[in-house]
């Protein structure tokens, strides 16, 4: 029994396909279409291609928009009616600021002149020989005037 099995196995080693079958199979294998590894991930590729396409569209749109805006801006700047120096709002704001600052400065000069005059006359009345009336009320009212001027300065 064992000898039979061994004999059969040895015979199996020598088994070969028929010549016709070998030629047919070989030509079938050689002629079959080859599948590349990239084609294996075709779903990913499709997605990627779709994304590239959409981002390309977005970029192109953005570029068109930038060109459009630049053209508008350049048109405004180069336009003969673009007058930044004579812009109504800019000039008014600047003039207001300068006028306010000048008025404060001129008020400051007035304040010091007035204060110096009051101080001088009060000191003279304090140092004179004949007795003086109560001048504090006069000085106070002058101080109030000066305070008013000071308030105007900070307005």
């Amino acid at each position, binding site marked *: 029994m064992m000898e039979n099995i061994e004999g059969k196995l040895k015979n199996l080693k020598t088994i070969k396909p028929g010549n016709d079958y070998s030629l047919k199979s070989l030509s079938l294998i050689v002629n079959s279409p080859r599948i590349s590894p990239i084609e294996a991930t075709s779903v990913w590729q499709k997605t990627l291609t779709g994304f590239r396409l959409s981002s390309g569209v977005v970029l192109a749109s953005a570029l068109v928009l930038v060109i459009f805006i630049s053209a508008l801006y350049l048109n405004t700047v180069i336009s003969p009616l673009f007058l930044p120096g*004579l812009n109504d709002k800019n000039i008014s704001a600047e003039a207001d600021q300068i006028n306010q600052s*000048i008025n404060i400065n001129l008020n400051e000069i007035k304040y010091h002149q007035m204060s110096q005059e009051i*101080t001088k006359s009060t000191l003279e009345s304090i140092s004179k020989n004949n007795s003086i009336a109560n001048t504090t009320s006069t000085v106070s009212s002058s101080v109030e005037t000066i305070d008013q001027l000071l308030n105007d300065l900070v307005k």
Partner: protein
Amino acid sequence: MKQRFKLQLVTAICFSLAISPFFVLAATPSKDFTNRQQSFHKVMELSNAEIQNLNKSLDDLQLDGNSEYAQEKTKLSEILSGFDAYNKEVSEKISKAKSVASLKTLAVEYKNWRENTYNLQAQIIINFSLLVQQRAMLDTANDRLNKVQKDVEKLGNLGVDQITQLNLLLDKSRQNLGDANQSFEKAKTIIDDYFSATSTPATTTEEIATSTANASSTIDVEINEGQVDASQLQLLLEDGFTKIKSAYEAFIEMSAVVKKL
């Protein structure tokens, strides 16, 4: 004898009662003294407010460490600190004064100090502050003039009807700014000359504060070295401000003309 003693006693009581008001009057300060003292305190209040205001003017100037006049600003602030210390000293003396005569002497001393030292220095500080501010304003105004000039040229090329009117207004503003620049330069020369004449270290706070008469004489020397016509300086600066204002009036008029195009 008893009657005589009684009479003497009654006379003594009546006499003491009669003269007691005079003692009371002598002990309380006279109305004249109180008036003088109160007025003097008011003067000091006023003077302190002036110094505070001058300090604020200097603090408001935007001068960083490296810019022109930064050193001068520091020196002027130091001088003001000295004035402040001196004022405090005088205020204390007023409070401690016992007689009208001492108040009178102090008032004369303080008045002389103000006239010979303080007033001129205060005017220097005011004018210095005005000069620095005017320089910034002139920079802005000159920039504006350049921009407006370009705009008017542009409108001239376009051949707008109002170009003659615009050119007249442009000339007016150019003239005003030219005058303002000139006034500024003259004022700047006066201030610069003053500072270069007084470039020796400024009088220290201690020197001014520790003594009254001596302190004023120390600053007097400094001021006499750098004689300055403060009123002329002030007139030049006021003229500069007026001219800048006029230039802007012309700019606004031009802007209104252009708005109607």
